């Protein structure tokens, strides 16, 4: 049998120890510290700008119109009509948001469960976190255009079967995007294979 070099064994053990220390310290950085939690949040909100440099907004009516245009099945569109404008993020910020939200959900360890933690919880929490980041950036007179919708899916998408399902949506500088909350996969409303079968939209 080939003899192992004691020096290389020692180096290997040190490397293993190094990995353990790195992984543990990383866990401590995102995890709890006694009575405190260290929660991952998305980085600074990036608003979409118009050509004249002013911030872009949309309205509940405009979002409703865009969804009605592609979905003849749409029955109800719920939103708070006292909010006249919803701020639009630069599209790249959607990736920041979803990456951070994924880290947040992994950290808190919540699993999808009917009623206790289902689609409107995923969407509501994402909407609220986004709105806080918008306020933090100084935009106190608006909130996020993120909500959820019910779709009677006829085609499988994002690894989910064709059945009645709830999904999230977000408006960015590139338009409306449909998001699968269970895995963060998203596509534009135009490319969403079940867009004709959206039945209810909740912009909350």
């Amino acid at each position, binding site marked *: 049998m080939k003899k*192992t*070099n004691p020096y*290389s064994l020692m*180096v*290997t053990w040190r*490397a*293993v120890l*190094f*990995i353990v220390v*790195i*992984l543990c310290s*990383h866990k401590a*950085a*995102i995890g*709890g*510290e006694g*009575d*405190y*939690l*260290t*929660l*991952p*949040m*998305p*980085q*600074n909100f990036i608003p979409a700008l118009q050509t004249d440099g002013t911030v872009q907004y949309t309205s509940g009516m405009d979002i409703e119109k865009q969804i009605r245009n592609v979905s003849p099945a749409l029955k109800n569109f*719920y939103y*708070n009509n*006292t*909010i006249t404008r919803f701020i639009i993020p630069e599209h790249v910020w959607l*990736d*920041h948001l979803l*990456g*951070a939200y994924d*880290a947040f959900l992994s950290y*808190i*360890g*919540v*699993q999808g*469960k*009917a*009623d*206790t*933690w*289902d689609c409107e*919880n995923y969407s*509501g*929490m994402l*909407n*609220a976190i986004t*709105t*806080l980041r918008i*306020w*933090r950036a100084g935009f*106190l*007179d*608006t*909130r996020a255009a993120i909500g959820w919708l019910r779709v009677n899916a006829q085609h499988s998408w994002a690894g989910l079967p064709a059945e009645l399902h709830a999904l999230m949506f977000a408006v960015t500088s590139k338009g409306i995007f449909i998001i699968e909350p269970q895995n963060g996969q998203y596509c534009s409303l135009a490319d969403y294979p079940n867009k004709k079968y959206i039945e209810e939209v*909740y912009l*909350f």
Partner: protein
Amino acid sequence: MKKISFIHLPFLLMISAMLLTGCAAPQQVEYIRIKRGPPPEIVAEGGEPKMIPAGFIKRRLRLGLPSAKNVVIHDRQYIYITEKWFHDVINWTEDFIAVQVPELNLHQKYPLAYDETFATLAGNIANISVAGRYNIQASVLIGLITAKHLKSWGAIPADGKKRVYLIGLTEKGGLVYDLHTRQSISFDEFPNFESITGVMF
């Protein structure tokens, strides 16, 4: 092909560890530090969590609130929580917001849709706590009501304006809470009960 010798293994492991930690911590993330919230306190009945079906609440609201145009109920089953924990959740949600938007506390500014966002956060924070501790398929009832203020309530005048309040389901029944004056009252005794225009939870 050249073989990788045993001496290279530690370096390969180090590189793997760096890649792994890099993947686990997305660059787009910023961390906030906040005190842990108190554990959930749900109400039990006969050794089981006390629950109420959404259909029952919906019927009661439709019959009892003829002025309510919108009654939006998301879940099928709701649990009762203690009034103490309801207030704990409110306090923790205030801290969660203050950590991220400190200027709201400094200037006592309330942004547009503050109450709605607060209710969404509080309800979801409560559900996260419950989901982490109990294996039940029911939601904490923390939501919103909108009412026309035809009668005064404490320092809030009877000015006919529409206002938004938090509602919760506790061991004492439905509870109405005002985020700005911090007063609360049972749902049935709420002075503007008859002019509630919307309910959502």
